[in-house]
């Protein structure tokens, strides 16, 4: 079932934005700290392997990514944003990718706000956009347009934030690269699939995507699987 090389972490993932969120952070952690090592179990979600009973035992929602921490009694986490926060809590000791909730609570809260905005807004709505424009067997013009419009509206919200002299979504001043950016970047990166050919309409957002794309950890992460 898994390629058990003895890595402390096992990530069930796929070639999707939510999967890349986790693999990007894991690659960033490896570059920053030398670890932890992880095994990536690749799932093609079109085959519905993730709906099989053995996987449902790990994640009752039957979705990737799902993380199993073998070094901590096989503790299992689902929901991509929760995985990011879990990894950060245990493996980002110097808080290179987040803010300390106790000593820096307001920056931490802002980061959480943008994480929920992406998790509840960008992900599901751009996801519906992909469904109706790329996968649905029926041609439904209203649904196609509804979710393209909402995707654009959400991009505009990010643009509002970033055009306030910011390089990143959370953190003081120009901002600091954090989970807030990581949690939404893989979706924005896929804008063409969302029927949005260029990001020219949102120049700060476009610059932010280019900035993040250049990071070695990001390049490594989007190659997994």
């Amino acid at each position, binding site marked *: 079932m898994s390629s058990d090389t003895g890595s402390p972490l096992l990530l069930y993932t796929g070639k999707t934005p939510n999967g890349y969120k986790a693999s990007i952070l894991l690659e960033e952690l490896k570059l920053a700290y030398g670890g932890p090592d992880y095994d990536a179990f690749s799932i093609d979600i079109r085959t519905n392997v993730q709906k099989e009973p053995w996987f449902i035992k790990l994640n*009752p929602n039957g979705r990737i990514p799902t993380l199993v921490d073998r070094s901590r009694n096989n503790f299992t*986490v689902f929901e991509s944003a929760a995985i990011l926060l*879990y990894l950060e809590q245990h493996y980002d000791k110097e808080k290179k990718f987040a803010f300390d909730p106790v000593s820096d*609570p*307001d920056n931490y809260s802002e980061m959480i706000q943008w994480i929920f905005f992406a998790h*509840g*807004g960008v*992900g599901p709505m751009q996801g519906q956009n992909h469904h109706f424009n790329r996968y649905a067997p029926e041609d439904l013009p209203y*649904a196609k347009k509804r979710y393209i419009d909402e995707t654009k509206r959400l991009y505009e*919200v990010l643009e509002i934030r970033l055009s306030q002299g910011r390089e990143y979504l959370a953190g003081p001043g120009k901002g600091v690269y954090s989970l807030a950016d990581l949690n939404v970047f893989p979706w924005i990166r896929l804008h063409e699939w969302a029927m949005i050919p260029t990001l020219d309409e949102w120049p700060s957002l476009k610059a932010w995507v280019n900035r993040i794309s250049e990071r070695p950890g990001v390049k490594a992460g989007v190659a997994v699987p």
Partner: protein
Amino acid sequence: MSHGKQFTFYTHKAGPNGWKVVFVLNELGLKYENVYIDLDFQKPGYQDPEFTKYNPNGRIPVLIDHRNNDFVVWESNAIILYLTEKYDTARHISASTPEDKALELQWLFFQASGQGPYFGQAVWFVTYHQEKVPSVIERYQNETRRVLGVLDGVLCKQEWLVGDKYTIADISFIPWSNVAINRILADVEGVNIEKDYPSFYAWHQKLMAKDVVKSAWAERAALIAQ
């Protein structure tokens, strides 16, 4: 702010996401001033600059903490987390251990992305959209049922979602569960939520019976009736 209360709370009389936060504010005994926004559900985001200066996403709820330099928080589950981090230090309604904290976040994210938005699309296509598009309605009704099934599958083995106690993880699901029962799946042939998802149903009724939830939900009914 002249009202003298600790919080200003921008919300909506009927909308589900504001009431989630009200449950938590009341459980923690916190004092807040409601500002009810009149939302036009035909528009995707509230445009008034006096509001979007707080939340560029133009949605409720939004909370301002006047005892923390007028700190602004939006996204209902981010608000709930802010409130419990700061004001539930005894962990009455929030996770007590780091493991449970991770699971609490997990369920909050599942609620925020898997329940809210999908149930919201169901309501849009069932109630608001001027055209009835059967395949789309079915898509979101099916997803609503799938989500109830996910919860039912977990709750048949345990009483609460996290840490063997009532927490914000459970609370976050309440308002949209009511929408599923009373609106999305109310007239769907062959669906009987109590029979089909018994553990989910029992858990939801237990949550609705909590004092704070019961009184807030009655308050909501009164506001809507006005």
